[in-house]
């Protein structure tokens, strides 16, 4: 069993861990000084590329590559083209709560990562967009920003390097979709939170139409580690498709739910049975959603996989946000999926047809099935409707709803059919009633 790491979570649990003095006492902001004084932006970028830092928001897109999409000044040009960074702190995927831990316990690690990314991309500043339901996180992060300004880590001519950088904290209003990068930008600009049609991508047309780079909180928090210790050290942790440390948020039917910092690509079985203490009530495991509610569900016999993109691909799922949702044998899978689809139907922004209409229809079919009025044909209908949503929408919310629906109905087909055959939930569950 791998010991939990203390890299991203190095300051978690320390007294007054959010204060800049605490952060600096253990070497904080040294990576920034190293980057500003000893490395060119290109060297920083190359180091991050070499470290193969994968995005921690869900898509696992290489961060260094993403940064390199931003325009840089050309030969003979005096000024850098205006561009922004965005930090996506809208953590809203059900089952995901890792960013909140970092924001509320170690904001300076995030801020330092943002600053180094700002140096590497020569951006003018960063919008820190934080979920509206995290007022405490917003306060803590704002205080961290204020402290950084006071120490000269933010503002004009940072640490005498000639580099100017600002950070603005913006609070969302609580829509799931505003975690999608372009919906976030629309919301940030004060508009209705709904995704933009792509292309153009944010690197060409981002916040206020300015080229922008957007990364997840945890992604930025990895950057100081890479700059401090080097890409070789970083890639020695984890697996090729998910190098470095990773925060796994485990929730549901385990004995010790919580955030575990472990190497990327650790086995799912190890997370569940060794770190999270096994299944609650020592009951049989029934199902696991490995990477936040949008990722396809796994059966109990599929948990011997590496928690990285390559590993989960072998069982038809994805790493997502590494929010592991565990369900033991007391869970009705129809009800669990109904719960998810209620969420997605409610959170669909409503602009494009398949997601707006399809998620609602799925919710209706699932509720009827759980309430006992369903038909056996409903199980195929769920899959077919989901396939009509999948890949047909403007943004990934459609896929996010369709993937669990398809996987639940396929992986637990017998249980779904049993609902129709029996005319009730075989587990005796009474469905939740929600106001439509």
């Amino acid at each position, binding site marked *: 069993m791998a010991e939990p790491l203390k890299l991203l979570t190095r300051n978690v649990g320390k007294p007054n861990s959010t204060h800049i003095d605490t952060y600096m006492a253990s070497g904080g902001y040294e990576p920034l000084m190293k980057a500003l004084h000893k490395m060119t932006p290109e060297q920083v970028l190359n180091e991050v590329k070499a470290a193969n830092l994968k995005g921690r928001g869900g898509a696992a897109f290489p961060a260094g590559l993403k940064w390199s999409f931003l325009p840089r000044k050309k030969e003979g040009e005096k000024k850098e083209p205006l561009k922004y960074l965005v930090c996506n702190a809208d953590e809203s995927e059900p089952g995901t709560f890792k960013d909140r831990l970092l924001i509320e316990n170690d904001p300076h690690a995030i801020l330092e990562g943002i600053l180094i990314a700002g140096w590497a991309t020569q951006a003018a500043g960063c919008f820190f967009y934080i979920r509206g339901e995290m007022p405490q996180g917003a306060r803590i992060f704002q205080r961290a920003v204020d402290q950084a300004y006071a120490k000269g880590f933010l503002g004009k001519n940072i640490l005498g390097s000639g580099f100017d950088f600002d950070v603005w904290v913006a609070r969302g209003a609580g829509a799931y979709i505003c975690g999608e990068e372009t919906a976030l930008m629309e919301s940030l600009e004060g508009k209705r939170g709904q995704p933009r049609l792509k292309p153009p991508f944010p690197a060409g047309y981002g916040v206020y139409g300015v080229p922008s780079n957007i990364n997840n909180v945890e992604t930025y928090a990895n950057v100081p580690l890479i700059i401090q210790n080097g890409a070789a050290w970083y890639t020695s942790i984890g697996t090729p498709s998910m190098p470095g440390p990773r925060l796994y948020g485990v929730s549901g039917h385990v004995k010790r739910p919580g955030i575990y910092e472990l190497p990327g690509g650790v086995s799912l079985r190890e997370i569940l049975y060794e770190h999270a203490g096994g299944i609650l009530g020592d009951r049989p495991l029934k199902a696991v959603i490995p990477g936040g509610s949008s990722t396809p569900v796994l059966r109990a016999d599929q948990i011997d996989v590496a928690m990285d993109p390559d590993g989960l691909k072998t069982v038809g799922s994805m790493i997502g946000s590494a929010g592991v949702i565990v369900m033991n044998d007391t869970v009705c899978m129809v009800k669990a999926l109904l719960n998810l689809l209620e969420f997605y139907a409610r*959170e669909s922004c*409503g602009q494009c*047809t398949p997601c*707006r209409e399809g998620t609602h229809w799925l919710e209706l079919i699932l509720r009827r099935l759980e309430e006992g009025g369903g038909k056996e044909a409903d199980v195929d*209908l769920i899959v077919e409707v989901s396939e*009509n949503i999948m*890949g047909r929408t*403007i943004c990934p919310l459609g896929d996010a709803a369709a993937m669990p629906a398809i996987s639940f109905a396929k992986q637990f087909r017998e249980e779904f059919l049993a609902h129709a055959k029996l005319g009730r939930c075989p587990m005796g569950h009474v469905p939740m009633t929600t106001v439509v």
Partner: protein
Amino acid sequence: MPLIRIDDKEIEAPLGETILRTALKHGIYIPYYCWHPALSIAGQCRMCLVEVQGAPKPLTACSTTVTALPPDKKIDGKYDMVVRTQSELVKRAQKGILEFLLLNHPLDCPICDQAGECQLQAYSYTFGHPASRMEFEKVHAPKRVDIGPHVVYDAERCIKCTRCIRFCEEITKTGELTLAERGVHTVVDTFPGRKLDNPYSVCTADICPVGALTSKEFRFKERVWFLTSANSVCPECARGCSVRMDAYKNEVLRLVPRENPQVNAFWMCDYGRLLSERLKERKPAARPLVRGKAGFSAFTTETFAPLLAEALAPFAGKASSAVVLVLSARMPLEEMAAALELKDRLFPEARLVVPAVEEGEDDALLIRKDRRPNLKGASLLGLKILPPGAPLAPLFAGKKAALVLREDLFALAAAGEREALKKALEGLECLVAGDYEVTPTGALSRFFLPLAGWHEMEGLTVNFQGVVQKTARVLVPPKHRRPFYDWVSRWLEAAGAEGPGPQFAPWFQRVKERIPALADKAVRDFLPAGIRIEEVTP
């Protein structure tokens, strides 16, 4: 230029052009709802999904652009892009989207005013499922929402394509509309305290592909398949928007804009459109009138023309310096040519003027302050234009006879001038007036000619840009209400001079003789969008 293949067709398409535009241009139909050629690309309806070789999932044709591949990477050695619009994947996608669109859409076409011109209906036949698999209560949403003075909104019928929203943002730049609520409860709404109230608001009903936005004036008046239509031109300002007039029985029920890139794009203003409502208020004259001691008596065409010719005979020839002809820029070129013919043949010394009428200011989109459709035509024919607001009474000073056509002079005159104008008209020995209805000017006349309305005759009209368009008649006027050129033919005949005849064609010939730029044109050349001619000053 990249070479692409769409289905079986090889097309050289410019880099960056969208697949949808390219396909439509080359006769390949891809269904769409939210895309509109004059609006920004939203990509929301997902109806135009096509299969692009190499793409992991179907792409929206409206937003996917033609790209080029390096020479060694070409598909099949020569194509930069291969697009399929008829593959199984595409058909499945189209079916899926239509099914989604109809899930919560009321299937009550028989009571929907859009039926017959509804894109949901049209596509359902071509691309849809034969039956609905929706077995649940549909989502209910506000119906008959009074969204603006001329438009009603039905949120249940709405497919949230946002064309109306984009129209208000991008074309009128008034921005009254937005999407409100989320998910399946999403509706189009106005911002708080606002209404869909701009001079072009009914265009939103035109571009609404379904029955969500309907025109208050037209809705539930008539099923669209019973309408008689004619391609015409709006007569309400110098823009001369290309329109289609739709009529049922004896009423024009609506005007809708026709696409004309050089004149009005896809739009027209609400004022022009509401001509149909104003026509309903009017009381068109059905018979020619002659004033006797006991007031007007109605005549027939056959008995009227000789009386008219006889009464005006004393003012003909050398005596015609005592005659004034006041024409209107509401007259098409043929009527103006007829008035010129009348002047040349009978009243060579007469004065002939066309008053210009202005109101308000030109706006940024279509509306012109010149409130007449054919002032440009009048100047092409060399007619004397009376500047807007010029006093009218002096026109009649020292005159004995006057012919006033298609203008109510009292409506044009300033309030303070009306008394003097009345005196001037009453002082004439013979006032002949011609109009669609008996106006206050007509009421003072000795001879009143009922003139066919704009919607009741054919004619050419020249807008302020010099675009010559042809009107067509959507309704046939009653027997004794005729275009002015028809009356002139009869007048000339009754006066013993030969006229070209009462039909449009010979008068069109006269117009061509008078406007050299039109000399080699045929009637069909003016359809459907008109011809822009060089300005000619004879």
